[in-house]
């Protein structure tokens, strides 16, 4: 399986996801510079976390307009798997590959902590290694993670099984939803389930020294589906 991680100016989880993916695949992962409009053949495109363009104006807005994104959109249309984590999720919504938008956290503060999320749909290439309803503990680290989508569109997404993960019961005495996302949504698919965006960072829960490995299943799912 070939995987490519896009590097935008200001990406800062590009190395993290590269390392985690390379471990899952057991082979190298390509890094693709945002200014390149060409990309080698690949089975998976990852948009990593970070603060591309400083998150200025709106998170992900400027990266969504970079040359490489035209290529990403074209590949996505051909059915190539695309995964956006945190800032990558923001870029995917800004680029129109996923519905909705990510607004500043309802608490208006950056939030970095572990959250519990529930797997809502395990019948996809991103989630086949999990059970539906399974609860995962994975860190979030973001300032703009409040998922928003128009109510009608949300209904459609529910009906189309496009909700990938929801924040669920968390630590004692704490709100489970760290950012005020509508309907506790932590991650969503496109209609075909070939594009996934999520706020939690699976690559930060992918080896024992992270204090948990619940994110590993997502990477393993991709490897088993795409290899």
């Amino acid at each position, binding site marked *: 399986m070939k995987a490519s991680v896009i590097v935008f100016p200001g990406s800062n989880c590009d190395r993290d996801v590269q390392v985690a993916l390379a471990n899952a695949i057991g082979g190298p992962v390509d890094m693709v510079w945002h200014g390149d409009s060409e990309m080698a053949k690949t089975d998976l495109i990852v948009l990593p976390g970070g603060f591309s363009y400083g998150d200025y104006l709106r998170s992900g807005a400027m990266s969504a*307009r970079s040359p490489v994104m035209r290529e990403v959109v074209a590949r996505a249309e051909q059915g190539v798997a695309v995964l956006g984590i945190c800032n990558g999720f923001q870029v995917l*919504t800004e680029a129109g590959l996923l519905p909705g938008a990510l607004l500043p956290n309802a608490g*208006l503060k950056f939030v970095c902590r572990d959250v519990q999320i529930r797997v809502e749909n395990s019948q996809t290439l991103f989630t086949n290694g999990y059970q539906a309803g399974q609860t995962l503990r994975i860190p979030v680290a973001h300032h703009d993670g409040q998922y*928003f989508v128009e109510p009608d569109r949300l209904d459609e997404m529910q009906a189309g099984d496009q909700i990938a993960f929801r924040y669920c019961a968390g630590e004692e005495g704490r709100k489970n939803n760290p950012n*005020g996302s509508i309907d506790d949504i932590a991650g969503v698919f496109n209609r075909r389930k070939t594009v996934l965006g999520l706020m939690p960072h699976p690559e930060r829960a992918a080896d024992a020294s992270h204090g948990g490995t619940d994110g590993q299943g997502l990477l393993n799912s991709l490897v088993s589906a795409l290899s």
Partner: protein
Amino acid sequence: MKARVHVSFKNGVLDPQGKAIGLTLANLGFDGVGDVRQGKLIELDLAESDPGAARKSVEAMCEKLLANTVIENYAIELEED
């Protein structure tokens, strides 16, 4: 020519910043403050001097970058030098 673009959240989109400002103003003892909304104001210096062309170009900038029309509205004002 100068352009001013006002980008604001659409009705129905939660504006946590506006809400927090309203709350804080009340805590500070400012009475009689109702709804508060926070938007962006982007000011651009343009080489273009024709108002029609300038507006069209700024509209394109808004659609392409300055606003996310899923959640935001924009309004453009032009000001000749």
